[in-house]
């Protein structure tokens, strides 16, 4: 395959970023929007072509019999560290990166299109900084594409940081709003902290393996892989394992070095994917414009952590401990986020917590995946869920954006009963809710079902736990749905016109995504994405018992939500009074933000930074000033000798001369 398409896929968004960023202010809003969207459209086509070629061409570059291969389209040296270790920028095509190309470009294109409508008010006046918005969107698309096609872990880290920065820029798009500014800051710093773990993980991994390349790290083969990190010279030529032989047991504090590396790398993933306890930035990130939330904080960037674990999955397989950690973190986060989502008022916050919960599903799915159970079903399920979730969550966010745009508020208390006013939004939103709740035949049903099946393969407890979360998901999504579209009649305020559906630029993406959400479940994902590239029959692993149970749970959740929220009634209030403590904790997100505020402001700033600054000014600088002071004082003290009286000097001189003479004489004698 010619490397032209891959280069263009990365180059076009980058060019659009520079072009719109530098020259945007000289062009009209309309043209900036059209150009940005067109650029993304071209990228979309190229990405589709590339993915299509990869999956369906059957060329020996891409597929060997039934096994899909990793294909490097190009790989240029970026920084030579020392002889063996080079950081390269390249383009790796394999099942998951091809899938991610499709996901990212699709959602990004939808968001580009949608923003043409969203980023102006009801009178068609464009938002200030519209060109900047498109520039940042392009930057984000570039970084995200670079991330998923990374050929080596360091390239991933580079683009990982870039998506973090573009997320920062986009969350803080409304930079005059203090809440947006602090949200963007929080997002960046929390993920930066997680990246510290990622970085150290990379350092450890690269030290022991002497390579950054994913292909080297993961494609040695399953049996061989287990030996790579366990001192066997015969297995991996590309790995300079001499260091291992030098120190026979690379153990550190009771765990193998590889476990440490993987857990630290997972920490980076936790930050980006908003796993507990590093999730606190994501709900606040909703301060950004809604299309951004749809693109970055629902569909693409936040699944980077899942993608990272999937990318290094063969390594994770070697260390069951690290996979267990992934599972546990995922399971706790899924439940926590679902609980919190049940009581939030801001519709974007509900969706944000739902995103956290769904990503945690993917994490759990990766954590429980094992080649022994259904040929690594969990891995496939996780990627499948990533795909379907990206579609329906983007749909939900864009729908929420349409609602917010129409109403001018984020709270459902200002909405209620909108179904008659905004039919298209209503129907598409409903489809999104059905998909996420896992109702057959919408896409979420299939992917979530696979996840639950693979959980069952791990342990019954995991299965029950995740099923419960699935039930909660159905409940909170339909609570949201009913509170927005039903509950009571919408009150149109005096002097305001009634809310209505949005222009075609906004509704078209909704319709497309809704259509995808309806049918995506029928994609035979097992043919495309599996952990080792071997295709397998999707339906063979479909467990009808699990499916039935999960369907029942979903229906139960939806039913409960219908009872409680379809019509205005006092039940929600009563429930709240029944469990006031739980409600309060959920409403305040279990006080995580307060805890972090305490740690950063009171401990880091109050107990570390301020004392250090004080120490610097008063002790260190004080010492220096003190030395100058002492010198000065000493000078003043001996200044009296310089009386200015000439005759006194002569006396002193004379006495000195005499003394010298006497001493000389004594010495001579």
């Amino acid at each position, binding site marked *: 395959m010619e490397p032209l398409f891959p280069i263009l896929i990365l180059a076009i968004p980058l060019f659009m970023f520079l072009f719109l960023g530098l020259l945007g202010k000289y062009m009209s809003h309309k043209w900036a929007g059209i150009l940005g969207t067109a650029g993304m459209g071209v990228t979309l086509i190229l990405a589709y072509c590339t993915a299509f070629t990869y999956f369906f061409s059957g060329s020996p570059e891409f597929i060997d019999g039934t096994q899909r291969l990793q294909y490097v389209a190009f790989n240029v040296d970026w920084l030579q560290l020392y002889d063996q270790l080079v950081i390269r920028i390249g383009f790796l095509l394999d099942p998951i990166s091809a899938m991610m190309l499709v996901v990212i470009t699709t959602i990004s294109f939808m968001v580009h299109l949608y923003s043409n409508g969203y980023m102006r008010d009801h009178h068609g006046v464009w938002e200030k900084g519209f060109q900047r918005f498109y520039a940042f969107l392009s930057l984000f698309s570039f970084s995200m594409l670079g991330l998923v096609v990374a050929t080596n872990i360091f390239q991933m880290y580079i683009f990982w940081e870039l998506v973090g920065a573009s997320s920062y820029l986009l969350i803080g798009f409304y930079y005059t709003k203090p809440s947006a500014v602090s949200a963007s800051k929080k997002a960046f710093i929390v993920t930066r902290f997680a990246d510290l773990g990622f970085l150290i993980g990379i350092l450890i991994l690269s030290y022991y393996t002497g390579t950054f390349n994913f292909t080297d790290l993961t494609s040695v083969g399953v049996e061989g892989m287990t030996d790579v990190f366990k001192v066997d010279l015969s297995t991996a030529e590309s790995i300079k394992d001499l260091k291992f032989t030098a120190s026979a047991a690379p153990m550190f504090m009771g765990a193998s070095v590889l476990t440490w590396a993987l857990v630290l790398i997972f920490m980076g993933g936790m930050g980006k994917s908003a796993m507990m306890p590093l999730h606190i930035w994501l709900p606040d990130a909703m301060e950004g414009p809604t299309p951004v939330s749809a693109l970055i904080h629902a569909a693409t960037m936040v699944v980077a952590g899942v993608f990272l674990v999937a990318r290094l999955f063969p390594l994770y397989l070697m260390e069951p401990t690290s996979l267990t950690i992934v599972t546990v973190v995922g399971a706790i986060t899924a439940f926590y986020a679902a609980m919190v989502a049940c009581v939030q008022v801001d519709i974007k916050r509900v969706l944000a917590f739902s995103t956290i919960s769904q990503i945690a599903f993917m994490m759990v799915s990766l954590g429980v995946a094992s080649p022994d159970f259904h040929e690594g079903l969990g891995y496939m399920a996780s990627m499948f869920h990533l795909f379907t979730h990206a579609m329906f969550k983007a749909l939900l966010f864009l729908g929420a954006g349409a609602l917010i745009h129409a109403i001018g508020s984020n709270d459902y208390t200002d909405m209620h009963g909108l179904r008659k006013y905004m039919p298209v939004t209503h129907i598409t939103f409903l489809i999104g809710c059905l998909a996420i709740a896992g109702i057959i035949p919408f896409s979420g049903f299939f992917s979530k079902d696979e996840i639950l099946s693979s959980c069952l393969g791990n342990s019954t407890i995991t299965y029950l736990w995740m099923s419960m979360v699935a039930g909660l998901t159905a409940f909170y999504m339909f609570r949201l749905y009913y509170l927005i579209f039903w509950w009571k009649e919408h009150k149109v305020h005096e002097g305001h016109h009634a809310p209505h559906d949005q222009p075609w630029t906004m509704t078209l993406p909704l319709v497309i995504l809704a259509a995808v959400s309806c049918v995506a479940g029928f994609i035979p994902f097992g043919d495309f994405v599996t952990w080792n590239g071997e295709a397998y029959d999707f339906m063979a692993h479909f467990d009808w018992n699990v499916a039935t149970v999960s369907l029942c749970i979903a229906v139960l959740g939806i039913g409960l939500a219908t009872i409680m929220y379809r019509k205005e009634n006092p039940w929600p209030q009563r429930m709240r009074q029944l469990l006031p403590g739980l409600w309060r904790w959920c409403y305040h997100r279990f006080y995580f933000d307060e805890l972090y505020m305490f740690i950063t402001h009171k401990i880091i700033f109050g107990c570390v930074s301020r004392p250090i600054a004080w120490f610097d000014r008063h002790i260190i600088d004080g010492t220096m000033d003190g030395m100058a002071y002492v010198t000065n004082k000493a000078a003043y003290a001996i200044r009296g000798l*310089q009386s200015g009286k*000439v*005759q006194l000097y002569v006396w002193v001189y004379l006495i000195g001369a005499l003394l010298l003479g006497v001493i000389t004489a004594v010495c001579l004698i």
Partner: protein
Amino acid sequence: MEITMIYYLIPALIMFCCGLYGFITRRNMIAMLISLELMLNAVDINFVVFNRYLYPGNMEGMFFTLFAIAIAAAETALAIAIIINVFRKIKNVDVEDLTKLKD
């Protein structure tokens, strides 16, 4: 009686001591200047004497003395000028009052 070096050196020493005594004890700057000249001349005598007795063939001591006299003259002129300026400034020539430079 042969006139040896010592006959010159002792008066020169007395001259020098007088000059030194005067320089230390007198407060008047003119008097101090005169004492200074006294010391210089004592040293000049020594130069000449040493040259005459120790290195009779050479003339360095003589030249040195001539130079010293010339420089002493210049120096005196300079010193007088300074003293006059000082007098204009503080209306006396007492060296005890001249301690401004230490500040």
